[in-house]
């Protein structure tokens, strides 16, 4: 019994934000009379928040490395504008535009990374300058106008669904099949990891616990896929998002590069004296942020079906908030990609739930501010109690 309580307590500490998210989901599900978890709304929730979640992934890496990036919203707007000019005005094919835009994002990231890493100017200042610079450039290249509409293939980045190859008319069979595929991959990887641990004689969860964990995970995956199947299917953007989450979680958890990012943010001087190329780490983290900002800008332009000078306004703050709600430390060295995603979803569900309830933007802003503060305070309190 004592042990069970202990396990529950550590798990509560670790997954406190996930629990908060679930409680919020249940609360809004109840308040909105069941609208929140309708297939249509779940799909919307993902489409609406995808560009923030993409930014949050990049942002949490920047924050772990001990920096901040205030310019991501402006970069997203600038890249969206470039996309508009290339596709709508110059009739360039979509795939080429996307490539060029991501490259521009990388170059912008390199520009900012250079000043932060090699000239040693605080990221706050460099990216504050970038925020103004790229917002200005956006207005300049758009000449204050909005460019629209985009062709269908570009729009489908954020509004398209994986088509049903089995023609399930009202029920999307491909979604279910994809769900089964994801479940199988998930279970195989888990079993493999467990076997490896056994090989090294480490303690593992008992077979019963392990397989019930797998069952819960599979049920969750299939549940969501079922929800999507009853609407239009799985959105493309969800696949992109999942791929990004898996990729960046792997990078941060399992690779040398990831370790070096944590080391750089945790204790810069110690990292330098351990042979970590801290300048290069900082530089590449910003390049990565630039690429993800560009992707976010493309997704947003695609969703809005327009390139506007106002695009991406305050995105940086949502992305930063998501990272901190997700447990990142303002001092660097601490944070996780899944945490940032959960943080982003907390903000997203709040937005979505309050909108359905018909709350005005004034109240929404105020409530979001309080939630951010409380979430981080809760985290600080939890950690203090744990240590």
């Amino acid at each position, binding site marked *: 019994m004592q042990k069970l309580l202990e396990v529950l307590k550590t798990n509560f500490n670790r997954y406190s934000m996930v629990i908060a998210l679930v409680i919020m989901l249940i609360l809004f599900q109840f308040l909105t009379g069941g609208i929140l978890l309708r297939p249509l709304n779940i799909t919307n929730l993902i489409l609406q928040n995808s560009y923030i979640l993409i930014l949050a992934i990049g942002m949490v890496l920047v924050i772990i490395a001990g920096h901040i990036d205030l310019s991501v919203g402006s970069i997203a707007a600038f890249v969206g504008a470039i996309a508009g000019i290339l596709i709508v005005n110059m009739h360039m094919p979509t795939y080429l535009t996307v490539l060029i835009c991501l490259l521009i994002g990388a170059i912008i990231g390199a520009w900012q990374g250079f000043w932060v890493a090699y000239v040693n100017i605080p990221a706050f200042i460099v990216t504050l300058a970038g925020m103004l610079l790229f917002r200005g450039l956006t207005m300049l290249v758009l000449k204050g106008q909005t460019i629209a509409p985009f062709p269908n293939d570009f729009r489908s980045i954020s509004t398209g669904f994986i088509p049903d190859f089995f023609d399930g008319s009202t029920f999307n069979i491909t979604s279910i099949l994809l769900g089964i595929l994801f479940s199988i991959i998930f279970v195989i990887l888990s079993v493999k990891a467990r076997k*490896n*641990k056994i*090989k*090294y004689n*480490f303690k593992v969860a008992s077979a019963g616990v392990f397989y019930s964990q797998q069952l819960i995970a599979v049920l969750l995956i299939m549940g969501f896929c079922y929800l999507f199947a009853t609407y239009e299917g799985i959105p493309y953007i969800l696949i992109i998002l999942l791929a990004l989450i898996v990729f960046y979680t792997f990078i941060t958890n*399992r*690779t*040398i*590069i990831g*370790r070096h990012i*944590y*080391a750089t943010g*945790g*204790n810069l*001087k*110690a*990292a*330098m*004296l*351990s*042979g*970590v*190329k801290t300048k290069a780490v900082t530089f590449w983290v910003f390049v990565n942020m630039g690429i993800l900002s560009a992707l976010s800008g493309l997704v947003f332009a695609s969703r809005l079906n327009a390139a506007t000078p106002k695009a991406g306004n305050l995105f940086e703050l949502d992305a930063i908030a998501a990272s901190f709600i997700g447990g990142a*430390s303002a001092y660097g*060295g*601490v944070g996780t990609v899944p945490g940032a995603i959960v943080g982003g979803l907390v903000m997203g569900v709040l937005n979505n739930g309050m909108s359905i309830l018909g709350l005005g933007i004034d109240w929404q802003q105020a409530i979001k501010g309080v939630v951010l503060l409380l979430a981080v305070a809760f985290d600080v309190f939890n950690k203090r109690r744990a*240590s």
Partner: protein
Amino acid sequence: MSDYILEMKGITKEFPGVRALDHVNFKVKDGEIHGLVGENGAGKSTLMKVLSGVYPYGSYKGEILFKGEVCKFKDIKQSESLGIVIIHQEFALIPQLSIAENIFLGNEKTKRHIIDWNETILKTKDLLEIVGLDEDPQTIVGTLGVGKQQLVEIAKALSKEVKLLILDEPTAALNEEDSKNLLELIKNLKKQGITSIIITHKLKEILAVADSITILRDGKTIETLDLKKDKVTEERIIRGMVGRDISQLYPSRNVKIGDTIFEVKNWNVYHPTISDKKIVNQVNLHIKKGEVVGIAGLIGAGRTEFAMSIFGKSYGKNISGEIIINGKKVELHNVQKAINSGLAYLTEDRKTYGLNLIENIKNNITSANLNKVAINGVINNNKEIVYVNDYIEKFNIKASSLLQKIENLSGGNQQKVLLSKWIFTDPVILILDEPTRGIDVGAKYEIYSIINQLAAQGKGILLISSELPELIGMCDRIYVMSKGKITGEVPATEATQESIMKLMTKGEE
């Protein structure tokens, strides 16, 4: 009134799962210098935190009497108002502010709520004279050396009309000369009626200045020795601290010394910002296989700077000279190259330059050589855990698990983690810069044993230390540095503290 200025009776302080203090009795006579000794974790710092109100009244059991009156401190402010002042091991000075601003921080001299700078400077001058610090009150504290900063701390304590001064490891970061001056100052303060408690690991020092010594072990008072009455030796105190005899302070080593594996020739280093200031001047040295070689010197002699400059040019500019490892000349342009060539440098400042305090033990130990547990940049977590568990067991690192954060470990255990981190890089040469600074006798002995094991494995050790007995006890050969130059080389068998001291001050005009 009794002749005790302070009486702590039956103090018990518990943390979740541990009893840090167990009915501790601690009495200090008015006007004496009282040493408080014990291993790390014995409860010295906790006891002082109880005394100063960091742990407020009610969070512990027992009674505190100051000048015969019962005290129930809620915070530090209350204990300070009675004249109880603690100077911590890590200074509470703000490096960007001036000496005067620091001394009167939180206690500003004001006239109608506006700071009276003339009064502040004047008072500061008086205080600096008492502590014997010849500096302008407006000097920025960050530009002072550690020794002088310590004096500023004491001046700050004096400004609060201190009756009972508590110094936590006051000489840990000081060289021999600064330490001597500091202890002299404490003796002078005693003449002016200020009682002092000194917490220290340096037993020789405390024997030289203290009137009595209290020994703590595992949260209990073991005994209080009156130095005027009893004849007390270092061995006597150590026996009280560890509860057993440590037959020797330095474990013996029986290693066959081999060929030269490391050589530095004509090494010169200039200051990173003052381009014409030579920090290391024509240094030549060599280390043989299985040999422990020491570098002695005063602070500012350039020992750390020399070590860091050979470790991938981590310090200095316009570096010139040759490094030869295993007979091959190597160019070490960065730390990565230095590590790959078989060099490891254990810093003297583990918290700032050594460890990532917010990270766990595992990730710290593997951080300097991740390639050893990775394939194509992907880390094998399981393999990593096997290595780390091995170090934890072998070096007796006390931690709840390998995922415990470094900041929650004691100094000795942190140092063992740092040492593991560098052993994990499979070095040919280990440069150990003050490897036993600020850690207790037991942990010191363990570190010395590890050094001996490494030598037995055929590694070369370069030991930089400010404690001369440590160098003489541990090394096969000792180089002495002064003002950036090697002023002598002595075999340990012929070395005495006096002869090394002489070489250390050579070249100081």
